[in-house]
């Protein structure tokens, strides 16, 4: 089948402003959008720049807007989006070149929520035990691959990059509700802020954007609830 791939282009060394390029390609319905980008890079224009690594939706490198919504280019097949495909960088982070954005603000927000297990009690000789129920309490948010699809789909984040954003709250959730962690209260203090959970207006873009199918809005709601009640359960 014939596909028209329209790609956002911006090279800081040669372009005053961004523009779009169209590429007419032969594709099969099961091609990934990433495969099309690779083909363009190999045979049409070697300057086209984008990040990618695992190519099957687990490393989180290739988040971009595909026909207007945030997706991983390796997890969208041509048959999912039809033969007119527009690819643009995610919103809310500065474009460096073509589809590559500056990820530093995103990772900085992640680091602000102390995204690591905190428990200073001496560990037992073997594993700390945890019931399957306790494990399932935070299982969903452990799936996050930090691709930024959620955060950069959030209108509140577009308005202010100071908003921690869904991904950082998901990371906090993963530890707040882990029965082995002892710093949930501290994380709730960090998130109980104008730039914390209260910037979330339950628009659900994040949940739709998540390639790992994490219930992002629900996780944010659970954190809000924990702040409101002062209870983590």
């Amino acid at each position, binding site marked *: 089948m014939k596909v028209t791939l329209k790609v956002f282009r911006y090279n800081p060394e040669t372009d005053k402003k961004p523009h779009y390029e169209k590429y007419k390609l032969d594709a099969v319905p099961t091609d990934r959008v990433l495969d099309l980008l690779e083909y363009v890079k190999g045979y049409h224009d070697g300057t086209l*720049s984008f*990040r990618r690594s*695992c190519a099957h939706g687990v490393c989180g*490198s290739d988040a971009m807007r595909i026909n207007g919504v945030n997706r991983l280019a390796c997890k969208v097949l041509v048959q999912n989006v039809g033969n007119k495909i527009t690819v643009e960088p995610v919103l809310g982070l500065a474009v460096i070149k073509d589809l590559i954005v500056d990820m530093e603000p995103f990772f900085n927000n992640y680091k602000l929520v102390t*995204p690591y297990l905190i428990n200073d009690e001496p560990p037992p000789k073997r594993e700390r035990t*945890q019931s399957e129920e306790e494990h399932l309490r*935070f299982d969903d948010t452990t799936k996050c*691959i*930090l691709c930024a699809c959620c955060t950069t789909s959030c209108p509140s984040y577009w308005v202010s990059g100071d908003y921690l954003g869904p991904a950082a709250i998901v990371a906090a959730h993963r530890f707040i509700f882990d029965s082995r962690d002892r710093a949930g209260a501290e994380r709730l203090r960090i998130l109980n802020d104008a730039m914390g959970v209260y910037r979330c207006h339950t628009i659900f873009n994040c949940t739709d954007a998540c390639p790992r199918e994490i219930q992002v809005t629900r996780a944010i709601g659970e954190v809000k609830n924990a702040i409101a009640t002062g209870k983590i359960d």
Partner: protein
Amino acid sequence: MQNYHQFDIIVVGAGGAGLMAGLYASRKASTAVISKLYPTRSHTGAAQGGVGAALGNLEEDHPEWHTFDTVKGSDYLGDQDAIEFMCNEAVQTVYELEHMGLPFSRTADGRIAQRPFGGHTNNITGKPVLRACYSADRTGHMILQTLYQQCLKNKVTFYDEFHVIDLLLMNGTAAGVIALEMATGELHVFHAKAVIFATGGHGRIWEVTSNAYAYTGDGVAVTLRRGIPAEDMEFFQFHPTGIYKLGILITEGVRGEGGVLINNEGERFMERYAPTVKDLASRDVVSRAMYLEMRDGRGINGKRYMYLDMRPEVVNKYAAADGRKRPDGSPYIVTGEELLSKLPDIIDFARTYLGVDPVSQPMPVQPTAHYAMGGIPTDMYGQVVIDEHNTVLPGLYAAGECACVSVHGANRLGTNSLLDILVFGKYSGLKAVEYIESADLLKLPNDSSDFARQQLEEIRNSKGDENAFDIANEMKSVMNDHVGVFRTDAGMQQAVDKIRELRDRFKKIKLGDRGKTFNTELLSAWELGNLLELSEVTAIAALERKESRGAHAREDYPKRDDKNWLKHSLAWMEDGRIVLKYKPAVITQYQPKERVY
């Protein structure tokens, strides 16, 4: 000086091995971790089924059994002292990861859950044992996340998206690395007393591969160019169950949970090849069986794939036939829901890429290039050793897939790669710390970045009209056809000739991107140069090994030959030519015997 950085220890690569090394090194020494990817993008995150450790949480198990299984899995080429060390360390290492917060799946009594995996057995009965400690089917993801989080907690210094191009050696001692900052195109000098390579594998040599784009063998290629040999490059693992055509990994955990491989006649053919453990034989055994079935016309619809079937009714039928029991003694019966909860990503991959729901339909799979048993030679503490006498190169360490300890020998067991990165990542970090306490920072010459710059400039200024993608595709195709699961003298010779032709054509490639900012075309071309060199080393080492052992299966030499070939290969690149030497495998308690499953 701009673009100059000084640390005690530099770690190259931020997957599981690099992060573990960085974590341990940074506790005692100034340490930086440099990676061409953001750490959480590393390929450790794609590992699925589990990490091997004889915790014995659900049934009897012992590190000694794990050791023997690994020796046998390696087809007796693995160094037994190192294997014993790794399997003994496994238990405490897994507990340590749990204490760091790794969210393992749990048993009914709250302990780390364990599942069966290929080649891991109860050494008395020979039956599969529950040894793979798992976190659903994203164990590698959870290891990578947990280690990155711990590095943040411990304030490890990262240089993300810095692509290491060269290793600096002064008087035969490690002194740092040269890296290109991807955002600016600038070269940086990282001056250090010790360097730890943890750069991962090189499975992008092959057409059908489970490996990430990033898996281009950078560490092995860089050290080869600096006169360090590569060990056992002829041994590369083909995982039996890659998604048809795409190669995306479907974990062996599917078979651990009871899934079976089926041929076009509806037969569970592994019963004929491995009567005791069947679908849970070692990967080399299963991949060969699939090829033989396909060769004899029993691929599905005559094509080059088989079915991996995990429909509950099929799992339950074969579990009953095998007399498989749960740890509590009840018959092994699964539901679709249970499979969904234990293998959610697999189900997602099958739906996304195959349009198949594996709870109600079987998945088309074929062997996929997966794991490098070979790499930079090291001892069991991660110290790089540079000749057949195991002479240590001071200050240089390697860990994880880029290294060859050798604990995997001729064939790695599933779950032992995650174990390898943890144990040897840790010990290379510890050993480097010990080393730098008495080592001097060696003075660097002013032109230390010249060799890196020269390599990149040659590519950038190349005047020809060859297309890099064409060269890559031809390389992958010839390596898949002739240096794959089964090999012959004529085929491998054809591959060597073709790769040499491609290396010549590579000197004449044409680049479109002349810029500095994120010039990914330039870096991809440099990576292709690495893959081409490693292809040639692989094909030549394979051509020279005139026997079949583990993943190296020759139709013209179908038998293992312990008399002549119970030894590791070492390949040097000398003036563009490859020179091979050999060193003996370490045998301690287990004498080689016939390998049956």
